[in-house]
């Protein structure tokens, strides 16, 4: 039983936390009407940032636990800042969101490789040891509860507070909202800060908890998997958290079917097939509900002549 619990926490729970956090972050961003196509690059970057921060912090601070905690926060803050830049560029520039998203994706991949390798360099010079978040059940339960709380907060913020209402309104019709005197760029910047913090935290936990180390190309594609979870959860935080349960279970359990005679190539492709099917099936279901519908101006360029 203990062995099972250990396996459960190490694989399923950590996958769940990462995909939920990143999925909810993506929901906050896309609810404001910006297509978040930089997600995979920025997720990969945050996974590398967490490693390098943790190395640097561990060499500065003797308490391992504190060092990892601080690097979690630093990663979240850095990703939030990058996302706010992403949102501002997407709002003020007269260029398609697909173009900016792809650019950010590539820049993210490149920077992730650089940042992670810088961490390695520091490591080879100083030989510090990172206290990765251990798989003890206490810390797992703590992170688990924090995730649930974060999802709840995201829900309250988006649906019960003025800022969230503004974010969603901007996602529906930015021109209308700006005509009543709201600064669209500012609202999107805030949603980028919030969503980016979620995504950064997810990326950091991916490195410092789920994997417990860093290697070249770490985190590649996991951003897209979380994106799929987010779309399949109708970009609605509680539902994202719910869909994430099924998705992480499928993701963790499907490779085990290999022992039942499934070819390895099929189980490798299974998470990707699952995400595509999940996105497609879900998006054909929700046409009727206003609450769950896609933001109307998602992916449309918000640009006016003489923007002052």
């Amino acid at each position, binding site marked *: 039983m203990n062995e099972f619990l250990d396996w459960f926490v190490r694989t399923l729970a950590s996958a769940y936390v990462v995909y939920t956090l990143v999925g909810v972050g993506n929901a906050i961003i896309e609810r404001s009407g910006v*297509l978040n*196509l930089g997600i*995979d690059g920025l997720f990969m970057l945050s996974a590398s940032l967490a490693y390098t921060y943790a190395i640097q912090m561990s060499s500065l601070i003797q308490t391992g636990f504190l060092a990892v905690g601080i690097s979690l926060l630093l990663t979240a803050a850095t990703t939030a800042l990058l996302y706010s830049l992403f949102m501002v560029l997407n709002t*003020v*520039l*007269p*260029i*398609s969101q*697909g*173009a*900016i*998203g*792809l*650019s*950010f994706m*590539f*820049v*993210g*991949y*490149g*920077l992730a*490789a*650089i940042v992670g*390798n*810088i961490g*390695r*360099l520091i490591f*080879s010079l100083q030989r510090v040891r990172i206290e990765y978040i251990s798989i003890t059940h206490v810390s797992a339960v703590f992170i688990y509860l924090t995730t649930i709380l974060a999802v709840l907060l995201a829900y309250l913020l988006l649906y019960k507070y003025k800022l969230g209402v503004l974010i969603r309104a901007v996602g529906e019709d930015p021109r209308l909202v700006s005509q009543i005197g709201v600064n669209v760029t500012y609202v999107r910047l805030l949603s980028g800060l919030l969503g980016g913090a979620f995504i950064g935290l997810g990326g950091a936990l991916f490195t410092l908890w789920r994997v417990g180390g860093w290697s*070249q190309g770490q985190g590649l*594609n996991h951003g*897209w998997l979380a*994106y*799929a979870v987010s*779309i399949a959860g109708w970009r609605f935080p509680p539902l994202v958290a719910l869909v994430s349960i099924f998705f992480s279970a499928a993701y963790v359990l499907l490779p085990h079917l290999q022992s039942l005679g499934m*070819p390895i*190539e*099929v189980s*490798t*492709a299974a998470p*990707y*097939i699952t*995400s*595509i099917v999940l*996105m*497609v099936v879900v*998006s*054909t279901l929700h046409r009727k509900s206003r609450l769950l519908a*896609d933001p109307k101006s998602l*992916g449309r360029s918000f*640009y006016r*002549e*003489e*923007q*002052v």
Partner: protein
Amino acid sequence: MVKISLVITKRYKRTIIESTPVILMGSLLTGLVMSYLIIWATVGLDPLSFFTTFYQTLVSYTGLLESLLFLTILGTAISIAFYGSYWNVGAEGQYVLGMLGAIYVVMFSPLSGFLSGNDLVSAAVLKLAAILLGGALGALWSLIPGLIKVFTKISEIPIMLLMNYIAYSLSDYLTAGPWKGRYTYGYIRTDMISESARLTVIPGLETLRYEVVIAAIVVLVSIYLILDHTLLGLKIKFLGTNPTALKSSGFDERKVTVSVATISGFIAGLAGAMRLLGYDYRLPYNIGDGKTGFYGYTAILVAWLSFRDIRFIVPSAIIVSALSSFGYRIQMSLKGLLPPGISAYAFSQIFIGTTLIVYTLTRITKEFSVKLVIRR
């Protein structure tokens, strides 16, 4: 109170500085300098050897021709998709599907037994069928995200990127399973295709094949003609620049998206089929591990640099193939300098990333003027 704001206005007069070649070269130079600075900051490579390597790459062109042709074909495929705001980042997967189609026709289909004779006509028919099926499979692979985009409004980008990995797995499944070769010295891979099914080597230029050269020219010219001289081309351009106008003039936006997806995927599949028939001759296992040369991804850069201008495809392809060769050479000269565990691959990624973002931002100045206004 001081108020700072960004003012963006449409440009009506164009100046020489805003022309496409200048922006192209400018962002490449910026990318080059940025990646040099990063290399310099991390390992301290001296500027002389960095730029000498760059110069040597540009001077030696023979090795570049092969990748130039493939990047031209794939770049055209992606470019026409970009014209219609269909962000075809799935060319890699379509390319792999093209390979699968080609090897199926020449090795496993009933046609291959039927046309196994060594006479020229049956070999030509076999090759043509292989290339066409490769193209068709590529088109099919691109049609899936296209239809998903049209019917569910999910962005095609994540779907395509995920489908690239599915394509790799599909190829590996076939290579290790039903198509596993008998004469492979213990490796997992398919057998070689027969001599008669291979493309013709150009005497004197061993890296080139007649069919590939012809295909590159045909693809480039026909896409140029489609875009500039047909109604479909006009509709594609409208879809990319002003979809509302397309809709209000009575055309179905969805049909245009689907046709763009099909054309783009077909050309990418064509390239994959030719790669298999002309160069690889067999399918390796673990194809996603760099064995495709990542042409499908590199070609995104080609399409990007020539953004919505088909005339710049070939110059961009020359630049990009020179750069990937440069990346390879710089890895060689970095080899002794880098500490263990650090790969030079990171630098080519950062280079691509910086070039893309600088280009994206500067090309805005071609059509819009951006000013910072400070008011009191």
